[in-house]
């Protein structure tokens, strides 16, 4: 009985660990968000910067994207701990089934796309999927999606690029260099550009999709609000100030841009990661 109570207590703590970071981020945003008056028109910018840390080369701005990505990371940690808490050989909880389903699905994905010798990448792929999808989905809470900041996605793409290069170098430094001069030496500049283009295209694809979704959503919401004020402004009192036309369409757009696009981009990023790494590895290694 005492054991059960303690398990429940830990469960509650873990759920708090999942919810609190995101809730904190929402609160932080609401408290610090600058009020932009309607008359100034629509403003679309990057993440809100809270403070900057002076560092060599370039100063480090701590922005909403940073804060939100840490909040998402804490949530993921909480989710992992919650799903595997009280895990048993003979499962008796739905969350264990969920955890096993996740592990099994990602394992299958990695096995079919990369092969048996890359099974160590399963947690990495799961990490990309979780971090990317949850970052994009955090916009549903009204947060600034970390994935709509280029630096966040560029960091991930750089890590993938490092892994690709690592596996290419496994075939030997000479083979790696020679790869740039094939099939004929004239292709060297193209090959080098192609190599560098991998992380850039990956990061810009992801960033661009999420960011553009946010931009379109903001623009349409603003347009609908203006339209509503123009068409329905004659209504008396407060009624005229309520943007009735904002009901409906933004929700449908959010369904596409936030949920579908966010999950799709996470999946695409993960798939590309698996493809690039498995093809970079020499066949016989």
């Amino acid at each position, binding site marked *: 009985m005492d054991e059960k109570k303690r398990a429940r207590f830990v469960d509650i703590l873990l759920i708090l660990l999942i919810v609190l970071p995101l809730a904190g981020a929402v609160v932080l945003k609401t408290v610090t968000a600058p009020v932009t008056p309607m008359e100034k028109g629509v403003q679309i910018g*990057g993440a809100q910067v809270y403070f900057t840390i002076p*560092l060599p080369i370039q100063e480090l701005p701590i922005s909403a994207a940073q804060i939100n990505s840490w909040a998402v*990371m804490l949530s993921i940690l909480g989710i992992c701990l919650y799903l595997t808490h009280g895990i048993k050989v003979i499962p008796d909880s739905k969350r264990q089934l969920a955890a096993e389903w996740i592990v099994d699905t990602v394992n299958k994905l990695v096995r079919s796309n990369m092969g048996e010798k890359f099974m160590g990448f399963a947690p990495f792929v799961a990490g990309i999927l979780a971090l990317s999808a949850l970052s994009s989905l955090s916009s549903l809470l009204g947060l600034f999606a970390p994935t709509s900041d280029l*630096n966040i996605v560029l960091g991930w793409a750089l890590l993938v690029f490092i892994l690709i290069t690592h596996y290419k170098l496994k075939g030997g430094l000479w083979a790696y260099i020679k790869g740039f001069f094939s099939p004929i030496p004239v292709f060297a500049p193209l090959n080098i550009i192609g190599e560098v283009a991998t992380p850039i295209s990956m990061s810009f694809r992801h960033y661009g999709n999420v960011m553009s979704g946010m931009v379109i959503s903001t623009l349409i919401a603003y347009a609908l609000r203006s339209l509503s004020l123009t068409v329905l402004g004659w209504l008396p009192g407060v009624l005229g100030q309520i943007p009735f036309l904002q009901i409906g369409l933004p929700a449908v757009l959010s369904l596409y841009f936030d949920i579908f696009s966010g999950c799709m981009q996470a999946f695409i990023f993960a798939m590309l990661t698996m493809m690039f790494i498995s093809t970079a590895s020499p066949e016989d290694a």
Partner: protein
Amino acid sequence: MDSPIISVNLWQTLISLANLYIIFRIMRKFLFKPVQKVMDTRQEQVDRIYSEANETRASANEMKQEYEQRLASARYEADGMIRAATQTAQRRGDEIVEEAKAQAAHTREKAQAEIEQQKRQMLKDVRSELSDLAVSIASKVVEKEITPADYEGFVDDFVENAGDRP
């Protein structure tokens, strides 16, 4: 203050890179390792249970075969025993019947011999009585004493003739 909508910041990029690495470690340590461990343990248990079941079935089959064999041999033995017993009984019965027959024959013979002897005895008695009777009649007739020995042959003749008479 907002950051520009598109900008590249080295430190932010590096932090993000580290973040993904940390998430990878978190996923591995807190999700994949425990779940994999549990799944492997379960697989192990299932395998063990299956192999145990197979072993048990094999031994059960073996035992069944053995029992069947034993049963068959027992049946064969019982058949043999019954056959032998039947034969013995048959022989014994035959012997008993044989013995009884022999005894009956013997008894009949003995009885016949006895009857024969009694008959002879009776004849003898009758004969001697008749001879006495004849002597006494004769002595009455001739009025003189005759010794039985003198007339033995005569009496015998008489008896012979008397016996033949119906």
